[in-house]
């Protein structure tokens, strides 16, 4: 447009003068700063939350007493958001309610603890729907809060944003309630936390009309059921039937090639020590699945995570806390394998995958009982088979890397995966230190192969089950906050930089949360695989008319976008630049506690197997490559 106005001579002059003018403008520009209010807020004393209280404060006090570890929100639902923030629960606000709801989901997946998320009535709430769905599929215990006008004006469309919320979360929550009786606010907090703290976790959705949020309670007599959480719920867990444990011991003892699948339930019940004890006692290999990885170290000789072709040999499979059940054929176990399933939810046992034995139990209780009851056993031949499969997988990945290095006009995804692993897990940084948000679509099929989880919560499986490709920057906010505060499974890794991986298509959905990362000085390094296209393009490459639907402009500078929003930026166009860029970004994270974006220039044609082998990769589940279940 500018060229058309200036004409060709003017355009030439502008081109010569433009660079200098741009440089001068950049020098004159005011630096990006964080308002002083952020520091003031950190230093401000917290007032005790006690009577007289508003309805919002009553609910906030319940959140504090129940151990809600963080709140992710956008402005809106002010009474509740401010009341929660004023209890001292770390509160993060961002640019889009959906992204912040994703952040809450990732926070749960990284820590094993409950996080809240909030949006305003109407559009703020509906912006969260996709993220609630993703959290529901991942079985994350997020507490979804939203304001909802007044009961008085219900149905009138007075003002704006009138809406019934609860029907919209039907099918994507464990429990939901529109609060309508102010005096029952504490009681309904109890309903919410009974659901969040027991059984199989899923989102809980509470909406607050103004009459509830702004109600005033002078003392406890104004509230119904105002008593301690030990009176409205229990922390005891269901224990396994001893006969079922005996039968499981028989099945495992008689197996030649038993395997344990460790999933979400092992993480949320913090059962990793019991899992290790059982595996080592009976020499049973372990493979992971689910929304997070690391309950069983990838370095252990019994880990099958990186030995996918061994999965087909298992003859007895012990599924522990596998909340999202595959159908037959979605896991690689063969037709002769028999299944034992441990799950706290009796109603789900036997769904999809036929069982030989079901055990209703808390995962940790069942694993402890099994570890106590199992005789010591040796499965040396089976462990050797796993080791051989692992070696073959490593060799295949090395071959992909070497092939990728040979493509010199762009950076191949195998190079990104290998360089990340070498820097984060095979170099000077302790391999269990860095928490990784493993997102993306096509790129994930490579990076998953190279990165390992060595401790609980080390890898967050981004696209798990719901398959949304856009949440990744939102997830990064949640994971970075979890590590900053050292919550739950991240306690020993407090304050360390984190790394996130995404693709250019997914990046587009939540990219503005780079500003959120930057304003809170969260030391996250976001690697963007920039292949100029949606991951779907290769399936449409012969569709001349429809193909542009799947394409972007080429060589976009996402690093510059990051710089404009306050992050450090790197642009990588050659394989040899990847490692130095990672090192610089990591140093920025350490020195300035500032996020970085590494824009890695690839090309879409890498997905074509006939032109650029190995092309787009498939997957085997469970294990490193799994993300559906």
């Amino acid at each position: 447009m500018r060229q058309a106005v200036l004409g060709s001579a003017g355009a030439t002059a502008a081109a010569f003068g433009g660079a200098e003018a741009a440089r001068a403008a950049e020098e004159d520009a005011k630096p990006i700063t964080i308002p002083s209010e952020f520091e003031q807020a950190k230093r401000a004393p917290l007032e005790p939350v006690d009577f007289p209280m508003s309805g919002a404060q009553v609910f906030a006090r319940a959140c504090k007493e129940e151990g809600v570890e963080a709140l992710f929100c956008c402005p809106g639902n002010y009474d509740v958001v401010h009341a929660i923030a004023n209890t001292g629960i770390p509160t993060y606000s961002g640019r889009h309610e959906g992204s912040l709801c994703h952040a809450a989901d990732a926070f749960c997946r990284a820590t094993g603890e409950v996080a809240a998320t909030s949006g305003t009535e109407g559009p703020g709430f509906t912006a969260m729907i996709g993220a609630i769905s993703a959290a529901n599929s991942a079985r994350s215990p997020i507490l979804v809060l939203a304001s909802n006008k007044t009961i008085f004006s219900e149905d009138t469309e007075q003002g704006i944003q009138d809406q019934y919320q609860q029907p919209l979360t039907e099918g994507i929550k464990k429990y939901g309630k529109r609060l309508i009786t102010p005096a029952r606010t504490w009681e309904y907090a109890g309903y919410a936390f009974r659901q969040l703290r027991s059984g199989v976790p899923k989102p809980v959705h509470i909406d607050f009309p103004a009459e509830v949020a702004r109600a005033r309670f002078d003392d406890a007599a104004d509230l119904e059921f105002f008593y301690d959480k030990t009176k409205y719920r229990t922390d005891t867990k269901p224990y396994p039937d001893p006969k079922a444990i005996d039968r499981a011991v028989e099945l495992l003892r008689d197996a030649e090639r038993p395997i344990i699948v460790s999933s979400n339930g092992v993480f949320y019940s913090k059962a990793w020590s019991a899992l290790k004890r059982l595996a080592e006692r009976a020499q049973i290999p372990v493979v992971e699945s689910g929304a997070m990885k690391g309950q069983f170290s990838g370095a252990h000789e019994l880990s099958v995570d990186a030995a996918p072709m061994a999965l087909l040999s298992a003859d007895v499979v012990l599924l522990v806390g596998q909340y999202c059940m595959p159908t037959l054929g979605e896991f690689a176990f063969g037709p002769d394998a028999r299944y034992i399933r441990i799950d706290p939810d009796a109603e789900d046992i036997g769904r999809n995958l036929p069982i030989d034995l079901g055990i209703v139990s808390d995962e940790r209780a069942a694993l402890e009982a099994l570890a106590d009851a199992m005789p010591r056993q040796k499965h040396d031949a089976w462990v050797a088979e796993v080791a051989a499969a692992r070696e073959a997988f490593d060799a295949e990945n090395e071959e992909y890397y070497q092939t990728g290095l040979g493509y010199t006009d762009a950076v191949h995804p195998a190079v990104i995966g290998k360089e990340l692993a070498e820097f984060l897990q095979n170099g000077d940084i302790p391999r269990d230190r860095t928490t990784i948000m493993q997102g993306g679509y096509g790129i994930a099929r490579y990076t998953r192969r190279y990165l390992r989880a060595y401790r609980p919560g080390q890898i967050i499986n981004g696209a798990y089950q719901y398959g949304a490709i856009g949440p990744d920057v939102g997830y990064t906010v949640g994971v970075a906050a979890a590590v900053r505060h050292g919550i739950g499974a991240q306690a020993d890794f407090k304050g360390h930089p984190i790394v996130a991986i995404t693709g250019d298509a997914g990046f587009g959905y939540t990219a503005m949360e780079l500003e959120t990362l930057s304003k809170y000085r969260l030391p996250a390094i976001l690697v963007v695989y920039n292949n100029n296209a949606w991951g779907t393009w290769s399936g449409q490459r012969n569709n001349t008319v429809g193909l542009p639907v799947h394409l972007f402009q080429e060589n976009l500078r996402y690093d510059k976008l990051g710089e404009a929003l306050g992050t450090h930026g790197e642009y990588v166009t050659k394989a040899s630049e990847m490692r130095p860029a990672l090192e610089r970004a990591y140093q920025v994270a350490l020195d300035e506690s500032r996020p970085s974006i590494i824009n890695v220039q690839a090309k879409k044609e890498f997905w074509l197997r006939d032109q650029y082998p190995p092309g787009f990769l498939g997957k085997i589940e469970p294990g490193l490559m799994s993300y559906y279940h």
Partner: protein
Amino acid sequence: MGGRHGGRSRVSGKEGLTAVRKRLQSYADRGVFRGLAEEPLRGSRYRFKFLWLTSAPFTLVYAPKSGSIVIRDLLPNLGPRTAVRKGIRAFILSRTDGALPEHRRIDVRCVNVACEVRRGLLSVKLVAKRRDHDYAVNRAVNLIHEIFVQLHTYFPEYMWENFDVPEE
């Protein structure tokens, strides 16, 4: 796997059919197959149809006299000179490799294995030697499973295009 390497005597047609029927029924009883149906064909052959890894049924034709088990039209649209056709043929034939663990191998002392592609449709044939019909049908079912794992791993586009597997 009764009868494996089981001497020189051949199994009778009735014994073979009983063994194959029992083995397939055991998969149905355990819920591995979502449904199993049997019908006799001309030439003393039997067709078994079962629902398992895909929405369309698998077809296995068993001839007791010859001990042959044909998994008919297992894979569609395998065009000539395509990587998937070449890759899957090579994979099937590699299943007799002595370097594979015994429980993953097709033992050529018991079973011969071959495959053919006609009009783009791949069929797999296993022929039991002597008394190894039960072993042969077990290997046939496991081979189907291994082929599908191979396709999911190395040829995801083929699975999207032919078996409605999600592209994402």
